């Protein structure tokens, strides 16, 4: 590991990897990425891997749209020799209550205004897209064919390999233990494998973002929460889009390999760092998904796991600098949708750090918004 660098990025998940790559691509000479475990070992590698433009708030729609533009050419841009398995088979979001159906109509209107070609579907039209769907009790659905999913391990690895080729120092099993400031400026990062002097520090530590922020005296209004997920044995192709419902709190997608990945949000899940898993989840998940997609009844589960959402008070990420700590930047609090935003956040953070005008205005996503009382509203989260 180098003794000094132009920038140190903390976190080897997809967000940290994308930021490190973009800094190097934009001409920064020396970038060190510190990851306390191995790549994608935190939230990235445990996520549902969906990528969607169908959000209910302007910032999320703009960011996700730009991210999908980038996902479409990502493997090529990064010179990756394998497939990141980006598939655009759409997202089908189901409405089961009047309240969410009304919200979806508003969402689609906003999405159209921002150039997203989402559409409102009747239950019959939804069944044309997913013949296996049980439309009982469904009022309608929204669909956007540009949405999809990608493989989080390959995507992160693609960013890291490209960063390494550009001279980046990617250090696994290197835990940041302290950050030294001098006159309100980032000076040195202490790690389990030695110190690095650097004027720039990027916090992309995912669930551990608040721990890192504390090292520079910043309090983050975030909490972490376990989300459970499972995968089935591979079966023949039957499910094109990601099927999702906010009122039921479920998402379900079939990966290119044929296995089906699904999760549910549990509103009673305690906050904390527990990444264990429970039989209650298996039972609940199975009963919900078999009601929605009855063909899954005979399909076996092969594995279950869990990962952490890092939630902010308004379910939007916290991006950029913090007044009073020069050289400190953060890309944290993604509230369960960090994977899909990573390509665009990588670019935006590197633009901020290099003193350029970010290509999308994200000034409203700074930490200061909570103090100013400028909370975003995002109605569409699982």
């Amino acid at each position: 590991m180098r003794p000094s660098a132009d920038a140190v990025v903390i976190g080897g998940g997809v967000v940290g990897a994308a930021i490190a790559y973009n800094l190097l691509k934009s001409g920064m000479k020396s970038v060190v990425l510190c990851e306390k475990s191995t790549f994608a070992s935190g939230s990235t590698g445990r996520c549902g891997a969906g990528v969607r433009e169908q959000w209910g708030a302007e910032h999320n729609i703009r960011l996700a749209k730009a991210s999908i533009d980038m996902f479409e050419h990502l493997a090529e841009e990064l010179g990756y020799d394998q497939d990141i398995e980006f598939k655009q088979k759409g997202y089908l979001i189901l409405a089961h209550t009047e309240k969410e159906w009304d919200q979806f109509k508003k969402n689609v209107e906003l999405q159209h205004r921002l150039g997203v070609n989402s559409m409102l579907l009747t239950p019959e039209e939804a069944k044309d897209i997913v013949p296996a769907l049980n439309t009982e009790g469904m009022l309608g659905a929204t669909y956007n064919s540009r949405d999809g999913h990608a493989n989080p391990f390959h995507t992160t690895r693609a960013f890291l390999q490209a960063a390494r080729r550009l001279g980046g120092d990617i250090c696994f099993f290197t835990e940041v233990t302290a950050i030294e400031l001098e006159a309100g400026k980032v000076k040195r990062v202490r790690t389990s494998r030695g110190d690095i002097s650097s004027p720039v520090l990027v916090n992309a530590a995912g669930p551990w973002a608040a721990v890192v922020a504390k090292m520079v005296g910043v309090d983050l209004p975030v909490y972490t929460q376990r989300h459970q997920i499972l995968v089935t044995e591979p079966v023949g192709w039957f499910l094109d889009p990601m099927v999702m419902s906010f009122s039921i709190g479920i998402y379900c997608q079939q990966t290119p390999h044929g296995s089906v990945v699904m999760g549910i949000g549990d509103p009673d899940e305690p906050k904390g760092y527990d990444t264990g898993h429970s039989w209650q989840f298996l039972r609940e998940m199975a009963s919900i998904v078999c009601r929605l997609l009855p063909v899954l009844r005979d399909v076996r589960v092969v594995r279950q796991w869990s990962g952490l959402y890092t939630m902010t008070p308004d379910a939007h990420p916290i991006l950029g600098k913090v007044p009073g700590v020069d050289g400190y930047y953060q890309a944290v609090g993604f509230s369960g949708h960090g994977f899909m935003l990573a390509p665009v956040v990588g670019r935006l953070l590197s633009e901020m750090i290099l003193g350029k005008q970010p290509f999308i205005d994200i000034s409203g996503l700074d930490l200061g918004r909570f103090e100013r009382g400028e909370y975003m509203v995002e109605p569409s989260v699982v």
Partner: protein
Amino acid sequence: MDLRIEDHPILSFPERKKVKFFWEGREVWGYEGEPVASALHAAGIKVLHKSLKLDHPRGFFCAIGNCSSCLVVIDGVPNVRACTAKLRAGMRVEMQRGAGPAPSDRE
């Protein structure tokens, strides 16, 4: 020769009912209640599954329901382990190609 052991110094084999079933549409026979894989093996059928990525032949391997080598489609249900499924008369057993057919909505 069907490789069935008739005489064994320790194990005994009670008389069982001979039944007909189908392999890829072709009629074959086995003993009721024996593992489907045994009946197929005895009938000289060794390739039960084609692998997910490279379409390589797969067959009887662990014999205890642990691996995924002998996956077959039985009466339309994919991912059935031939080594632990018990033979019934009239069963329609097919070679599973990759992940097999899409799951279907059966009552």
